[in-house]
């Protein structure tokens, strides 16, 4: 039983440096209860999209309101929160969201995946394997994996209810006939618990295998579309494919210029106006940890980004 599923939160007002006039984690307790109920239902039916009463948040749709609402309804004073955006803890969005929670909860935050109890992410899964007891909350733009082929909500709901997933196969078929392989690079659809087809959110297909039988609880929130879904720990998550064109993760030749990793998902960074580029781990915490442990990449110089990271840790 995950700590944090409480109906009442008793906060020691004096010790938490949070904004006056706001409830803990911004949302009122009634809303949190409603969201938790939706989460419980979602967990009971892995991959199934549950409607919820998405609230107005102090940031517009498209900026992670779904993920924020899920986090807000779960976070408790004992939690340690990590927020990443495209793998990085220090992009504008990650910083803003982390600050939002600091202001409204006073809860401890971290950049270390291994230390966090609650991780909110946009479009990536951390490289560091998750542990039982951790919760990862994904920000989802379009929760409906069939939407691009079937615009009617009434129809897509029927299709999920009746397991009519023929059109998803069509998409994959089209890819193969046009590109010679399944070309979907991100938001690659998955079959959860051998029942529901789900959108994993726009994570790169590279990350899909991490979802399969992950010991952590995976929650998904879409604020604009007002849907929540979940993958309980150790659930089977299978990426859709054809028998003769099985799902495969492609790995390039590059390694991280900073820490030398050949296993992680890399970002391409242009370092000067001449188009010089290097590849670096998208997951900043992962890269940082390896660097600290003495792992080095090929790059001897210090790009600004990396320098800043190391500076903060010092």
């Amino acid at each position, binding site marked *: 039983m995950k700590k944090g599923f409480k109906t009442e939160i008793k906060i020691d007002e004096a010790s938490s440096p949070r904004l006056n006039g706001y409830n803990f984690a911004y949302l009122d307790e009634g809303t949190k209860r409603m969201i938790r109920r939706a989460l419980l239902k979602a967990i009971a039916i892995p991959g199934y999209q549950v409607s919820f009463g998405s609230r107005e948040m102090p940031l517009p749709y498209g900026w992670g309101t779904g993920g924020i609402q899920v986090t807000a309804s779960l976070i408790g004073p004992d939690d340690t929160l990590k927020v990443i955006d495209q793998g990085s803890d220090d992009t504008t969005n990650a910083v803003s969201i982390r600050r939002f929670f600091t202001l409204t909860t006073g809860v401890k935050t971290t950049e270390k995946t291994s230390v966090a109890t609650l991780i909110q992410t946009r479009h990536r899964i951390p490289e560091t394997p998750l542990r039982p007891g951790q919760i990862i909350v994904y920000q989802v733009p379009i929760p409906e994996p069939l939407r691009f*082929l079937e615009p009617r909500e009434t129809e897509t709901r029927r299709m999920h209810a009746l397991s*009519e997933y023929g059109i998803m*196969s*069509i998409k994959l078929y089209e890819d193969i*006939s046009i590109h010679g392989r399944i070309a979907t690079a991100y938001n690659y659809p998955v079959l959860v618990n051998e029942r529901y087809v789900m959108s994993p959110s726009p994570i790169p297909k590279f990350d899909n295998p991490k979802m399969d039988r992950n010991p952590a609880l995976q929650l998904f929130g879409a604020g604009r579309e007002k849907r929540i879904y979940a993958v309980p720990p150790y659930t089977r998550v299978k990426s859709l494919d*054809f*028998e*003769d064109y099985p799902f495969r993760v492609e790995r390039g030749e590059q390694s991280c210029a900073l820490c030398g990793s050949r296993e992680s998902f890399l970002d391409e960074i242009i370092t000067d106006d001449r188009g010089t580029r290097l590849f670096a781990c998208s997951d900043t915490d992962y890269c940082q940890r390896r660097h600290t442990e003495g792992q080095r990449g090929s790059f001897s110089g210090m790009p600004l980004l990396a320098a800043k990271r190391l500076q903060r840790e010092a």
Partner: protein
Amino acid sequence: MVWEDRPLLRALKVTKYFGKRVGCCDVSFDLWPGEVLGIVGESGSGKTTLLQCLSGHWVPSSGRVYYGEGTNGLADIYELPEPRRRYLMRTEWGFVHQNPREGLRLRVSAGANVGERLMALGFRHYGGIRADVLNWFHRVEIDRDRVDDFPTTFSGGMLQRLQIARNLITKPRLTFMDEPTGGLDVSVQARLLDLLKGLVSELSLSVVIVTHDLAVVRLIAHRLLVMQQGKVVESGLTDQVLDDPQHPYTQLLVSSVIQA
């Protein structure tokens, strides 16, 4: 119960009202495996309404539609659980629309359109699906090179043939057709009818085809129902009805055909 002793489709007093307006009224017939039943009449005769009731799209106001499914005997199609009915509509039943654009996915390649029913059935071998699809392209006389083209680039006749392939690839036991040759050029119509006739006989398909064109039914239907203002006014074998029409309306229809 022996397979052949059971009709494939049975309509029993099928009636459909739209408010006070009669769509079709009291239509009953049996359709046996391998038979092609034509339903003719002019616009407003109720033939399309009847077709929609028979094919599971519109619930009749009264009367029943039975389908001989599995080994169970006749089942009332509107009493079937929805998943079962939808499954039948994807596999054992076909529906060819008058306007092929209504029966195709226009934003998906021609090959994917034809392969969809296979994929919906759970076939997951790309190579196998594609081979089947190409085979059907050949059967409906569409150039195999067009398999990856979008239907928006096809002519009307090709679209209709594509729709037919899409429906027949799972060899449905029962296919409903709504004016499949409507709107096509005469030579294209002839070619299409020819194709249909060949496929019907080769695959022993049962078909219910609605049309206002008597030449079409003369060519491919074994039996006819003649409808006027929602009611069946005459029925029998195609040649019986067309060569020896009894009802005044049938006589009018038959005599109105302009011989080329």
